C-alpha cells in the first residue's frame, strides 16, 4: 500500500471520527433533550467530575466495594472538580456518615478538590459530596451519594469467585449468566464474544472444566491480571467424539462495581474458542506446547498447537496469492500457478492444498495436496466433484504447516467453464 493511499485512509478515518464526535456532542449540548440530560453545569453548582481512587464516579454503581489490598497506601482518595457557572467554588465538604458530619476537602482556585481518609476494614461509608459556591449555593448533594464498603477479601478471592461463576455458566451453557461477567469494554467486543460462546454451546456438549489460579496481579487503575491452568473435556455435538486438553492462559479483568469482569483473554482460550481469531488478543508465553482444542470455521473440533499472535490473520503461514489458470481442458486436466514468498517454496515445512467447489461460496472440497516444492500445479486431473457438462468449477489454494496443521487464509478464487 503506498503512502498516498495510507494518507487518504487516515484522512477518511479522521473525518469519520470528527463526524462521530459531532453526532454525540450536538444532542448533548441541547439541554432540553428529553432522553439526554446534560448542561447542568451552565446553571447552578455542580460537580464536573469525581474520581474515587482513579475510578470515575459516573462509572461506579451506588454501592461500591473496595478491597483493602487494592487501596493505595490503605487510603481512599476522593478528587474532583466543582463548577458554579460565573461564580467561584467556595468550599467542598465530604460526608462519610450519611450527612451526619461533614469534613472539609482541599480546594484549589479552579474548583478542583481532593479529600482522603483511611477506611476501616469491614466498615461501610455513606458518602456525599457537597460543593458550595461563594454565595452559599450547593450542588444536588443527594445525587452524589455512594455507599462504600471496605472488604478485607483479597483480589485473588474475587477473581476466584468470578472464574467459578464463569466456569459454571459455561458448563451450564448459560450465555446470560456468562455475559453478565464480561466487561462492556471487552477488548474484542462483547457482541463477538457472545456469538462465540453461543457457537461453543452449539458445538460442545458435556463441557467439563477444571482450573487452578496461579497468579493475580493488580494495576493501579483497577485492572487485574490473572494467570491460570486449566484442563477440560468436551463432547462434539456433531460427531459425538470426546476431546480433552490442558493448558495455561491469561485473563485481564476489570473491576466494575467491585466485580472483576473479563476485559481481555489470550490464546489458548477457555471461552469463545469457536471464534478464537477474533476473541483472543495475543498468545501466552509459557514455553508449553500442549495440544489444545481448535475449532475450525465449519465447527469441526481438532487438537493442535497455538502459535503466532491470535487475531492477526493466520499467524505465520504465508498467504498464497495471484492464483491463475495456466492451462485447462474440460473434463480432463488443469494447470495452475500462484505466488508466495520466495523462501517458502521448496520448504518442506509446508504443503499446498488445492480446493475445488461448484460455487464461489463453497462448499470447498480438498482435491489435491502436495509438498510445497514449487508454486505450480501441472496437469492435475480436474472434475473431481463435477460430473457431466455445464457447471463452472472454482479453485483456491491454501498453505498448511505440516507440524501443527496451521493454515493460511485462502488465495483468490479462479473459475473455469467445464462445459
Amino acid at each position: 500500500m503506498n503512502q498516498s493511499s495510507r494518507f487518504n485512509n487516515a484522512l477518511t478515518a479522521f473525518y469519520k471520527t470528527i463526524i462521530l464526535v459531532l453526532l454525540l456532542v450536538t444532542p448533548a449540548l441541547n439541554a432540553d433533550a428529553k432522553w439526554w440530560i446534560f448542561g447542568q453545569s451552565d446553571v447552578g453548582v455542580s460537580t464536573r467530575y469525581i474520581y474515587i481512587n482513579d475510578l470515575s464516579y459516573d462509572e461506579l454503581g451506588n454501592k461500591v466495594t473496595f478491597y483493602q489490598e487494592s487501596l493505595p497506601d490503605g487510603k481512599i482518595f476522593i478528587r474532583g472538580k466543582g463548577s458554579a457557572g460565573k461564580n467561584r467554588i467556595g468550599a467542598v465538604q465530604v460526608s462519610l456518615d450519611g450527612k451526619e458530619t461533614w469534613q472539609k476537602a482541599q480546594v484549589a482556585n479552579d474548583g478542583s478538590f481532593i479529600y482522603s481518609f483511611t477506611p476501616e476494614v469491614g466498615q461501610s461509608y455513606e458518602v456525599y459530596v457537597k460543593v458550595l459556591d461563594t454565595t452559599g449555593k450547593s450542588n444536588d448533594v443527594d445525587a452524589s451519594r455512594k455507599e462504600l464498603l471496605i472488604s478485607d477479601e483479597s483480589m485473588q478471592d474475587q477473581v476466584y469467585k468470578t472464574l467459578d461463576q464463569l466456569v459454571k455458566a459455561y458448563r451450564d451453557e448459560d450465555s446470560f449468566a456468562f455475559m453478565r461477567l464480561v466487561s462492556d469494554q471487552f477488548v474484542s467486543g462483547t457482541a463477538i464474544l457472545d456469538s462465540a460462546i453461543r457457537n461453543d454451546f452449539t458445538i460442545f456438549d458435556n463441557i467439563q472444566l477444571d482450573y487452578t489460579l496461579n497468579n493475580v496481579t493488580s494495576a493501579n487503575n483497577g485492572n487485574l491480571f490473572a494467570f491460570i491452568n486449566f484442563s477440560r473435556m468436551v463432547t462434539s455435538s456433531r460427531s459425538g467424539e470426546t476431546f480433552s486438553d490442558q493448558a495455561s492462559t491469561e485473563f485481564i479483568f476489570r473491576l466494575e462495581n467491585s466485580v472483576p469482569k473479563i476485559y481481555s483473554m489470550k490464546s489458548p482460550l477457555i471461552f469463545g474458542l469457536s471464534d478464537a481469531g477474533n476473541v483472543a488478543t495475543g498468545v501466552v508465553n509459557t514455553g508449553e506446547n500442549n495440544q489444545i482444542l481448535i475449532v475450525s470455521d465449519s465447527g469441526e473440533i481438532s487438537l493442535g498447537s497455538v502459535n503466532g499472535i491470535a487475531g492477526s490473520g493466520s499467524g505465520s503461514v504465508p498467504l498464497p496469492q495471484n492464483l491463475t489458470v495456466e492451462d485447462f481442458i474440460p473434463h480432463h486436466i488443469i494447470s495452475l500457478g500462484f505466488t508466495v514468498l520466495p523462501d517458502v517454496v521448496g520448504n518442506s515445512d509446508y504443503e499446498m492444498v488445492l480446493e475445488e467447489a461448484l460455487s464461489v461460496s463453497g462448499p470447498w472440497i480438498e482435491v489435491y495436496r502436495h509438498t510445497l516444492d514449487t508454486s505450480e500445479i501441472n496437469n492435475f486431473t480436474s472434475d473431481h466433484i463435477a460430473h457431466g457438462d455445464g457447471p463452472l468449477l472454482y479453485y483456491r489454494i491454501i498453505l498448511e504447516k505440516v507440524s501443527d496443521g496451521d493454515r493460511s487464509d485462502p488465495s483468490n478464487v479462479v473459475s473455469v467453464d467445464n462445459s
Partner: protein
Amino acid sequence: MHCFLPKSPKLPISVMFLFCVFLTPPVFAGNLSIWNDTSVIMTDLSGPGQSSSSLTEGLRHYSVLDLKSRGKLSAYDYSLGFGIKATNDERRDSEEISLTTLKGHFSNRINTLNVGDTYESFSKYALNTAIKGASYRYRNDGNKLPEITLLGGVAYSRWDNFWDNDATERKLYGARVKQNLMQNLWLATSVVSIKDDDSYFDSPLYDGNTLTFDLEYQPLPGLTIIGETSFSHIDEENATSGVSKHNGQAYRLEAIGDQDPSRVVLEYERISPDYLSIAGSATADREKFKASWRYRYTRKLTINSAFLWYRDNLDGQLAVRTQHYKPEISATLQQLFSRRYAIATLGYKMDRSYSSAVSTQNHFVTASYRDRFGVFDSTTNVGVTLYETKTVTDNDEFIANTSVTARFTQGNIIWKPAIYLGTWRSDDELNDDIDYIYDYSVGLGCDIPSKKITSKLKVGKHKLLKESADDSARLYASLDVYYRPKLMAQLKNSTLYLRGLVNDYEYTTSSRDFRENRVTVGFKIRF
C-alpha cells in the same frame, strides 16, 4: 532479569528461601496474612474409554500458600507478597512445586516502586500485560508535574520460566508520561520496547517499539471522550520465512455519555493489518464501529440496544474481505403482572457475516422469566437460534430450561431443594438430521448455620441423542460439604471441605464407556 536469576533447577528452592528470609523481618514488624488451601484428591477411572477423561487417576495433592505482609518503613508504606503452589497432578500444573507470586510494593504517595510481579496498565494498545520485573511511578497531585511511569522486566507468564520450562525471553521496557492539561483533560504518551530471544516451538520472535498517545476529556458532566492512537514498528522473525517488518497504526475514539436515564457509548476503531500488539490488546486488520444505548424508560423497564460493524482486509492483502453486522436489542421488565419478584427479559440478536467466499446469517431470540411463588424461586429460559451459512449450514436450534429452587427452615436446619430440566433440539435441514439433548437433575442443599455447615447433593442425567453418530449419556452425582469451625480467634474463614463426584459416561459404542469417581478432602485457612 536473567543476571539476577540464572537458570538452575535448584533456583526455586533458593529463591523461596531467600524470599522467606527477606520477608521475615517486616513480617514481624508489619501485618501478616496467610492464606492456605490444601487438598487431597482421590480419583478412580474405570471403563474402556477412560483415556478420554480430563481427570488424573490416583491419589493427588494440591496446595496453595500465599503470604502477604503490610507495614510501614519510615515514610513508605509497603506490602510484600509471596505464593507457592505444590501438586503432583500434571493436569493442574506441569511443575510439582512452583513459585506463583513474588512481589513488593513501596509507596510514599508520591513515589511508588513495584518489584517482582508487576502490572502497569498503560492503555489498551500500549501495555496491558503483567511482567516479572519492576516499575516506578512518580505522581504528585500537589504540583503540576506530569505523572511518570517507568518499567522493565520479562513478559513471562510464570516464574518457572526463569529456570526451566523455558519460554521465549520477551524483554519489555516501557515509559509513560501523563499530563493533566486541564482539570478535565489529560494526555499521555507511552513508549514500549520489546525484544525477544530464544524461540521455543518455532514461535516467532519480535523486536520493536510501540509509540502510543491517549487522552481522556470530560467536556460535560456525564460525558467522557477517550482517544488513543498507536504506531508500532516491529520486526517479526520466523524460522522459515525470515524477518518481516510490521509498521502499523491503530487508533480509536470512544465517547461515553452516562447520565440517567441513558448510557450511550459510541466507538470507532481502526487497526491496520501490520499493527502488531505484543504487549497491548488489539486485533489487527480491523475497522470497527460500535454503538450501544441503555435506556431506563421507567423504573421497571430498561431497553438495551447495540450495533456492531467490523470488517477486515483493510489493505486488500487478503483474497476476500468479510463484513460483519451484529445488531441487538433487548428489554427487561421488572414486576411484570404487578408481581414483586417477577423479571422478564426478551432479546433479539442478529449475526451477519458476508464476503465473496462465505455468507452467514444467524438469528438469536431469547426470553427469560424469573419469579418467586411463595418459597419457590423459579427461572425459565427459552431460546431459538437459526443458523444459516449458505450451502454449508442451515439449521435451527431450540433450547429451553427451567429451574425451581426452594428454601425451608426446620429448627436449626435450612433445606434447599432444587429441580432442573433442560432440553435442546437441533434440526440440520441440509443433512436432514435432528439431534436432542435432555438434561435433568435434582438437588438438595442442607445448611446448619449454628454448626457452620453447608452442604449440597446433586444427582442428574445428561443425554445426547444423535441421528447420525454415537448417542451418549452422562449420569452424574456430586456432594459438597463445607464446615467452618471456629478454631482460633485469629483464624478467619477457616474451612474444612469434602467434595465427591461421580460421572458415568455411556456411549452407543460401548468401548468408549468410562466412569470417573473423585473424592476431595481439604481445608482452607486464612489468618
